């Protein structure tokens, strides 16, 4: 019986909540010495047996990166990482191909089962193909054959470089150019591995494609590179989930995700992010500086859904460039920050084509001493006639020492466009609680109800398989503690 459970107690429970997925697995990692210079880039490229154009691409990015300075406009404060103290490559030593599931390092299996996402189970029960990224090299890819039948390419990035260089060369860096920003340039120079996905013309991918990212070796930054290409009239739903083991020192994660939706294609990209957020006193935790962007051609649609519960510092703006006429961009986000977490997240919707539409729904929940910011841009260019945008950014505050901030940018250069933006910030209202209680709903049920209803709009966007994981994460942080 939890009668009399108040918001304060909920806030206390939140603060006391320990990171559930914290552990270190002892897998031998092939680690390049710390530091960043041209030699390291040559080394990474050589280790991965890359073609010369990719090495040139990396070196060019490194040249650009050297001239850039770290951005400091975000509403976050953290010790700047020492980029020379990071090792830029770590791969599990046994990179041999696994003949069968039994060949996989038992310790790695153990890791996965601790995460509750056992690959076997995934394969058997859900029908989800999992490209499991342990540190920087993919070690297990399933359902590949089934996908191959349809002509779908779903593999690790390094594999794609070897087997489909023409596709990689054609699309790499077309959405996020190397000079885009500090972290994108860094990633372009040193990216280790990631996922590659190509859906051929007219194919509707029959299953959710999923990658679980993990950071494992200590002191190793992760620089994932993801490239998803949906050819004309195709559809794909892509899932990305993150958990990381508990660490004391800060870890850097600077990924780049590029989505390309050609004419009439649709990409649905869902993320559950649960990197290690640091402990109750704000020690440790992952720095998550991610550049995610998609480009839509005519009648194409890109939909970003994210549930962000982890990381000490998050700096992430999944964006859509609505280049084609009648293209659609969507962004649904729930960001939960607790203890000393800081999140500066949002989206950019750049309307270039005519009759383009975008929707932004962002829900922030701040607890403990955390800072949670929404930062978004809606830009309507001159030629983007009859464009439409709707944005809604709500913040929920729990406890008097956290902060919730909204920084929307709206730039409109076309008189036929229609833009609506609204934002609210509040706590769980006493009047709302009173209203529920008045109708015989207990206090804890009421809080759960309100929080649940608050996020539902976004959670509903997640694919079934993912919704389970997301709800699990949220229930740990919010609903579970109440109900």
């Amino acid at each position, binding site marked *: 019986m939890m009668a009399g459970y108040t918001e304060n107690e909920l806030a206390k429970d939140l603060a006391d909540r320990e990171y559930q997925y914290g552990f270190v697995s002892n897998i031998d990692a092939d680690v390049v010495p710390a530091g960043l210079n041209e030699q390291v880039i040559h080394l990474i490229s050589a280790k991965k047996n890359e073609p010369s154009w990719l090495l040139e691409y990396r070196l060019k990015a490194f040249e650009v990166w050297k001239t850039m300075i770290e951005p400091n406009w975000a509403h976050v404060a953290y010790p700047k990482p020492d980029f020379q103290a990071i090792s830029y490559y770590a791969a599990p030593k046994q990179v041999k191909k696994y003949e069968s599931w039994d060949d996989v390092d038992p310790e790695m299996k153990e890791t996965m089962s601790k995460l509750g996402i056992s690959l076997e189970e995934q394969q058997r029960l859900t029908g989800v193909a999992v490209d499991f990224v342990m540190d920087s090299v993919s070690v297990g890819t399933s359902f590949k054959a089934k996908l191959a039948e349809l002509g779908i390419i779903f593999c690790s990035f390094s594999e794609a470089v070897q087997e489909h260089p023409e596709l990689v060369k054609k699309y790499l860096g077309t959405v996020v150019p190397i000079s885009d920003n500090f972290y994108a340039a860094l990633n372009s120079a040193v990216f280790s591995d990631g996922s590659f996905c190509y859906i051929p013309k007219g194919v509707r991918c029959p299953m959710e494609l999923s990658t679980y990212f993990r950071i494992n070796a200590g002191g190793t930054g992760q620089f994932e590179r993801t490239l998803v290409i949906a050819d004309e009239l195709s559809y794909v739903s892509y899932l990305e989930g993150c958990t990381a083991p508990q660490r004391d020192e800060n870890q850097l994660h600077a990924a780049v995700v590029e989505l390309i939706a050609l004419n009439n294609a649709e990409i649905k990209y869902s993320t559950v992010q649960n990197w290690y957020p640091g402990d109750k006193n704000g020690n440790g935790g992952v720095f998550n500086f991610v550049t995610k962007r998609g480009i839509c051609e005519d009648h194409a649609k890109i939909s970003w859904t994210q549930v962000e519960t982890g990381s000490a510092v998050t700096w992430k703006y999944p964006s859509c460039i609505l280049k084609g006429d009648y293209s659609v961009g969507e962004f649904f986000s729930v960001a939960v920050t607790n203890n000393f977490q800081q999140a500066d997240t949002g989206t950019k919707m750049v309307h270039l084509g005519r009759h383009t539409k975008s929707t932004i729904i962002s829900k922030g929940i701040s607890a403990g001493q955390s800072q949670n910011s929404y930062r978004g841009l809606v830009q309507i260019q001159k030629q983007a006639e009859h464009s439409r945008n709707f944005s809604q950014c709500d913040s929920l505050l729990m406890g*008097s020492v956290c902060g919730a901030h909204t920084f929307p940018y709206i730039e409109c250069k076309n008189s036929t466009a229609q833009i609506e933006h609204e934002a609210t910030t509040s706590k769980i209202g006493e009047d709302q609680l009173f209203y529920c209680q008045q109708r015989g709903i207990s206090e804890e049920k009421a809080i759960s109800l309100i929080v649940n209803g608050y996020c539902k709009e976004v959670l509903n966007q997640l694919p079934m398989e993912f919704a389970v994981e997301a709800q699990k994460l949220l229930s740990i942080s919010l609903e579970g503690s109440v109900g």
Partner: protein
Amino acid sequence: MSGTLIDFCKQLNPTPLNLPEALLKAAKDGIEFQHHFPTTRDEAWKYTRLGRVSALKLSPVKINPSADPLPSSDSIDIIFENGTWYCAQPTAGLHIDFSGDIDSIAWNACTLQGHVQHINALTAQGGVAIRIDANTKLIKPIRIIHRLNGEHTGLILHHQFVLDNHASAQLEVIFEGLGDDSYENILFDFFLGVGSTLHTDMLQQTKGTHYGFHTQRIYQRKDSTFALQTITANTHFTRNEIEVFSQEEGTHTQLYGAFIGQENNHIDNHTYVHHMAPNCTSDENYKGVLSHKATGVFNGKVKVYKDAQKINAYQANKNILLSDQATINAKPELEIYADDVKCSHGSTTGQLDQQALFFLRTRGISETKAIDMLINGFLAEIVGAVKSSHIQEALHTLLD
């Protein structure tokens, strides 16, 4: 390459007003540190280019303290005409001073932010200091009219308005005249005592290629009420910076604004409300109508400080674009460090409702007339809040 801020100040006024030493130093250091005019890389000037301003060749306006008193009318008039102040006889409890000696108590409360305020501190040529005694309720409104004609003029004024405890007043501020290639930097400091009320209507309608920088800083004490309606009509370049410091409990702040831009007009509104104390409310509503190649900027920020609980802050910005060449940049921000608050903002950008337009046309109203009617309706919320009959009249002529 345009000149530095130091050079810009030199051409304006070498002998600044009687300011506290520390502030002068802060302004000097600020200018030296910044050196050049900010660029669009600077967040506060992201949508406003200052290249033309920095290249202006200016000569300062010579200020004559005061000429013959004005005859009495339905308002207490203070008129600044081409360098000369004319002033009506103040009524009981009202003090008006042109000596240029800025009340140092007031100044000490201020900190200087940004190059506009730095330039003002270093080169202010004068200003009016108005004080209303405690418990005085002024019946007639105070009307300040700035009328300056001329080319290449640089006018820098620092006004001060102090309402003692439980005083109340109504103020009208008007900027007009014709100023080609001229620069204007006008700063108002409002100090509202406990329980005081001030209603201010401001009309900016200077003609010509004129660059106007208007700063209003409002310091509110317990239970005071401040309302400001800013109407910017077809000015070539206007930057309004309004900063409200709600320092004690129970204050109410209302910031309304309407900006109408045409041709190459650039109108930039920045507001910043600091909720430093609990139990306060603020209500902000800005509406823009832009045609031709005009650009409008709205950047509103509400900051709720830690422990400033029970704040109710509302911010709205609505814009209508009448032409494909017109641009609007809106950035409504919330920064909140207290949990028991209700803060919201909304921003919309769109065009005139085609159905409404059609409805009017079917009733035999010409297109121009119909558009005027719709714009009138759109702005009615703001215009209706203007108390000054003088400004109301000016607006009716403008909008018809």
